[in-house]
């Protein structure tokens, strides 16, 4: 068995054993090992992918939430503004109505006063006429006694009249 010449026996054995080993390992070692390696790599990749997806979803959820919040805030502001406007309007309307009412009442009162005044004046005129008649009557009755006294009397009456 020299160093450089391959021994035929060893060639035969090497061929048989190596090829046999190859088929045995292929069936019982490489297949399950490579499959498990592949599976593990895939599961790691899937986990990473789903984490990335979850991150993106979280971000979109957050932006959705923010959008919703913003919309809600706007809605609230709008509602508040509407309410305020309505209140103001009502207030103004009420004020206008009240003023109108008051004006009308005042007008009415004025009219009543005027009418009353006219009526009173008419009464006064009638009274004055009555008084005048009465005075005239008394004057006529007293006319005969004294001029001066008569005059004083008339004056007093007139004074009384003015006071009224």
């Amino acid at each position: 068995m020299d160093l450089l010449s391959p021994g035929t026996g060893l060639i035969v054995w090497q061929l048989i054993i190596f090829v046999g080993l190859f088929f045995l390992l292929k069936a019982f070692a490489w297949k399950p090992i490579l499959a498990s390696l592949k599976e593990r790599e895939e599961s790691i990749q899937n986990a990473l992918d789903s984490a990335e997806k979850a991150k993106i979803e979280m971000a979109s959820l957050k932006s959705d939430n923010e959008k919703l919040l913003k919309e809600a805030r706007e809605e609230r502001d709008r509602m508040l503004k509407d309410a305020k406007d309505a209140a103001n309007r009502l207030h103004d309307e009420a004020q206008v109505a009240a003023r109108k009412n008051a004006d009308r009442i005042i007008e009415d009162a004025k009219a009543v006063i005027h009418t009353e005044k006219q009526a009173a004046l008419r009464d006064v005129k009638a009274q004055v006429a009555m008084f005048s008649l009465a005075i005239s009557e008394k004057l006529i009755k007293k006319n005969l006694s004294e001029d001066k006294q008569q005059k004083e009397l008339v004056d007093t009456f007139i004074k009384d009249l003015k006071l009224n």
Partner: protein
Amino acid sequence: MKKPFLVSKTVFFALFFVVFSGRPLLASDNESGEEPKKFDANEVILHHVVDDHQWHFTDHVVLPLPIIVYSSEKGLDAFSSSRFFDEHHNPVDYNGYKLDHNHILLADSGKAVFDLSITKNVAMLLINATLLFLILTAVAKSAKNRTGKAPKGLQSFIEPIIVFVRDEIVKPNIGHHYEKFLPYLLTLFFFILFGNLLGLLPGSGNLTGNIAVTLVLAVLTFIITNFSGNKNYWSHIFWTPGVPLVLRPIILPVEIIGIFTKPFSLTIRLFVAITAGHIVLLSLICLTFIFQSYVVGVGVSIAVMFINLIELLVAGIQAYVFTLFTALYIGMATADDHH
């Protein structure tokens, strides 16, 4: 700075021992009272590197191995290799067979027989294959049982090597259809790696440093490469595109020689790298017996330790290189056309 110091110290001790030890040491392994034979380093080294019909651990511990021979004259025959030696370890003929320099011949005609013996390397081969099968099936079992879990124990030691072979050697060189060739390349890598490492053990056989073993591996690579070769591969060989028409007939023989130089280089590279490493180690150890000195023995042992570390590296590198080139050749034979 440390190395010169170590060297000077070794030299000092060497001188010390040479001066004071008085008599040279007898390193002969012959104890039977005969005249000590002259120590022949060449014979010792060669004996350790080549195949043998018996497993020689020391001169007293020899494991006889089965001899299986076939000849047209005597048919198939099987017996123990110990039959070739008498009780004094002297070679004798047995049953018409003669062991001559590790070749079995027919004693009368001197004709060589077809030798299918379980030699030292065949035994190593069986040990290597059994070990590989046991380890890798254990890994497969643990991979199956621990689906969806982190690898553990032996599995976490072997799996990274498998991933390395797959991702660093096979995938980049073969491409997208690498999976078909992965089992062969993995078997190749682990067979060579374990063979190299087992060969480094004291007393073991030089399996992957045997040219028959590397030849078979290279021939298998050759067969797989050429049988999986596609149209582009053959058209590159027989009618190389991109070369002027006049030159194509000249390129043709070069390409055809190229088909055969590839497995040849694979055979020689692994054989030489491993055998050379063993020869270096054995030569250093033989220095002890040539100089017959303890001092040299100590110095040589230190050197051998470091060479052994390099041999561990070589064991990995040669497994890598053989697998890498195989993957490269297969990749070249199956590459898609990109002209």
